[in-house]
């Protein structure tokens, strides 16, 4: 996050705070009358509604620093929330392990922000969402107290799983201080891709490949103006089986930057539009068809994660009215299956036309009750999340 002119979904904060320690941050929470918007690397600050009313932006990175505590034999690590994903992985990779967190822009994205915003990446299909990596966490409650949920072991059912509630809560229930996460051995893998013609075909082939027993580390269908490819990261021993399923198609190694494109697409510096859809597998082909109309320069479909994302750079993309129609159509399509579409990134002037979250879900009264139970005064990111929570 750069200092000058920072805005949150188009709105400017009354101040930018940079507490230097956990105690200072907790005191800030306790004493604040304005709503606080916690921010780490600021990679997803544009996502969601502008805060309701005057707010202070709180850069938590200095307050939530420290070292990684790695337990390699247990495959766990406790990581401070203010550390970037890349920095944490640099420590772990030196010992042959890594986090399966791969949010966009991991050199800036913090561990806490990745969990809070539930930003997943190409390995989501194989390893699960960020919340699935979490064994326990500590967080600052709305009254400034620091509390603990979960633990440090890989299997644990003692008490309610509050870490689930914090993950994906978008900074609106508490501020994550540190998290104990699973670590995974870095495994040998091969990166290959096959030209598939169109997204529907790519989805069929992905279904056949996984039905044959392959559990790819990455399995994305990508369309980027240079054809439509099924990009896979596989264990070397799985390659022959994959070639059998994909038989006869042109295969090649990933071009340079493929992984970064799959991971960062939508959040690169010159991306101006990004729409992410979550839906069951069988709706992804139709979802992609509708998204095509936004003339995205990049379309990524991640079947094992039930995700499709369309991204457009400055010179591409559509006008705001058109985008609204597209997003609404996708929402009508996926909503009956519990799916949703998020306009993750768009020019601020589009906000009047395009609702970044869309209509709240039917169980919205429970979401509101959760906000009331954990942050009764609306101290954290008030107004930012679904339904203006």
């Amino acid at each position, binding site marked *: 996050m750069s200092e000058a002119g920072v805005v949150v979904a188009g709105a400017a904060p009354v101040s930018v705070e940079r507490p230097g320690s956990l105690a200072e941050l907790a005191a800030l929470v306790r004493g604040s009358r304005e709503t606080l918007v916690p921010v780490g690397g600021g990679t997803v600050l544009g996502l969601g509604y502008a805060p309701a009313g005057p707010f202070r932006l709180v850069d938590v990175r200095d307050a939530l620093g420290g070292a990684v505590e790695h337990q*390699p*034999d*247990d*495959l766990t690590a406790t990581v401070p929330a203010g550390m970037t994903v890349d920095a944490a992985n640099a420590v772990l990779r030196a010992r042959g392990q890594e986090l399966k967190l791969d949010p966009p822009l991991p050199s800036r994205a913090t561990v806490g922000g990745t969990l809070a915003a*539930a930003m997943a990446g190409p390995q989501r299909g194989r390893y*699960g*969402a960020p*919340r*699935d990596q979490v064994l326990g966490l500590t967080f600052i*409650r709305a009254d400034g107290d620091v*509390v*603990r949920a979960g*633990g*440090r*072991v*890989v*299997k*644990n*059912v*003692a*008490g*309610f*799983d*509050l870490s*689930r*509630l914090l*993950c*994906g*809560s978008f900074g609106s229930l508490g501020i994550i201080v540190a998290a104990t996460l699973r670590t995974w*051995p870095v495994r040998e893998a091969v990166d290959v891709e096959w030209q598939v013609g169109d997204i529907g075909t790519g989805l069929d082939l992905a*279904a056949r490949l996984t*039905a*044959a*027993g*392959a559990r790819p580390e990455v399995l994305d269908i990508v369309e980027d103006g240079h054809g439509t490819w099924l990009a896979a990261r596989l*264990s070397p*021993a*799985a390659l*022959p*089986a994959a070639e059998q399923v994909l038989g006869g198609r042109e295969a090649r190694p990933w071009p340079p930057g493929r992984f970064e494109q799959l991971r960062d697409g939508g959040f690169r510096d010159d991306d101006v539009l990004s729409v992410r859809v*979550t839906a*069951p597998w*069988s709706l992804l082909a139709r979802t992609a068809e509708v998204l095509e109309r936004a003339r995205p320069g990049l379309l990524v479909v991640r079947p094992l994660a*039930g*995700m499709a994302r369309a991204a457009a750079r400055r010179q591409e993309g559509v006008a705001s009215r058109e985008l609204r129609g597209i997003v609404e159509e996708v929402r009508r399509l996926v909503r009956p299956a*519990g*799916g*949703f579409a998020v306009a993750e990134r768009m020019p601020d002037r589009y906000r009047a036309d395009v609702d970044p979250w869309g209509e*709240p*879900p*039917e*169980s*919205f009264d*429970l*979401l509101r*009750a*959760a906000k*009331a*139970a*954990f942050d009764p005064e609306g101290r954290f990111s008030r107004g930012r999340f679904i339904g203006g929570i």
Partner: protein
Amino acid sequence: MTTRRELLAALRRAVGDGAVVWRPEDLAAYEFDGTVERAVPHAVVLPSTAEEVRAAVRACLDLGVPITPRGAGTGLSGGAVPLRRGVVISTARMRRIIEIDPADRVAVVEPGVANLELSRQAARYGLFYPPDPSSQAACTIGGNVAENAGGPHCLALGVTQNFVLGIEVVTAGGDIRWLGGRSPDPFGFDLRGAFIGSEGTLGIATKVAVRLLPVPPAVVTLLAAFPEVAQACEAVSSIIARGIIPSAMEMMDRLCIEAVEAGFRVGYPEGAGAVLLVELDGLEGEVQAESARVRAECLERGATEVRVAASEEERALLWKGRKGAIPALGRLAPNYYIVDGVVPRSRLAAVMERVAAVSARSGLRIANVFHAGDGNLHPLILFDEREPGAGERVLATAAEVMRVCVEEGGTLSGEHGIGAEKREFMPWLFGKEDLATMARLREVFGADGGLFNPCKVFPGGTGCGEMGSRAAAVRAAGPDAYV
């Protein structure tokens, strides 16, 4: 005070005459689960739909009567035992598999469907439901959701939490709501994830949407015998450190091996101090390569013998001892008590030694059969309930084992839940404010009135009394006491 007659009348209005159980002799089937807890409910209802569940819940709320959800009653922490009596809501009549969608690899089921039945039906599409508690022939998907159940094959693929997409619940406040849906991520706060493992204290699951996986084409099972438990524990760590995550890694100690041999003669090497069962699944090529590495790793760590099974029959033979361990131990002592705890994998060997010391001190034999891959212990305390004071000694011994787990950086339960049995230990893990924060989740679901599965998960609580003496008091009150 509500009279029994008023309660039964209200329940009949809610779910119909044929769905209310009230005769003392019929109620006896609902007074226990898999633990030592006992309490007879005033009535049991057997709803067939979410609407009937809601009607029953609302009737109880109106009358101020405690509610306890129940699946198959295989729980091992007293969760389904109605400690403050009242009404048990059973899912026994909600056993439909609503759909299996092979394209989405999703199944939607009613909560009373047995875990194994789901995998059996999914097999027709080449799919299966990975979480496989050892009780899977009986236990229900609703009970699995409530306990966040695991099983032997949860090491590589994950537990219930990792496979549930959506849950329709009747909340403790009496509303029907979907948490999540058929899509991989929830829209909004992950209340679905927070509900999983809440042990029937926040509401009743009335439909569950789960993720299914393709049945792996190749499976290899290895059985390695070691002179000492410590060596087997080291093998577990080094296999995982090599980047191999088997689908299962189960261990048995000397006492278990002896019991199994005496019971079924599966042919475990004589004198072995530990047996490690490792299963790998996936593509043929992957599985072959990994099984060679697992074998080498075990030999390196001191295994005296490694057997590899490839055919279905050979695999069944290797698993026979593991699956029959509990009945086999039943031949060594009339009663056993299963403890469930987790420790960091790297502490396994040290913890096994400490558990042996607890056993020696208590004079009770403890056998160990457990999910070694994720450090999930199941010490089985053998005893004879006819000996005076046996019950108290067993509970005290179990508490000591729990204490060891917590001291070694672990936790009170890996899969069986806190329930009634361990709730007084929760302060060992969590501070007062941590627990109070957790308890706020009850407000979200309307469970703050204290009527929904009372005396579970959290320490204290009114009308729960001391464990054991509480159950006795409830029994003494008799089936016709006031509600």
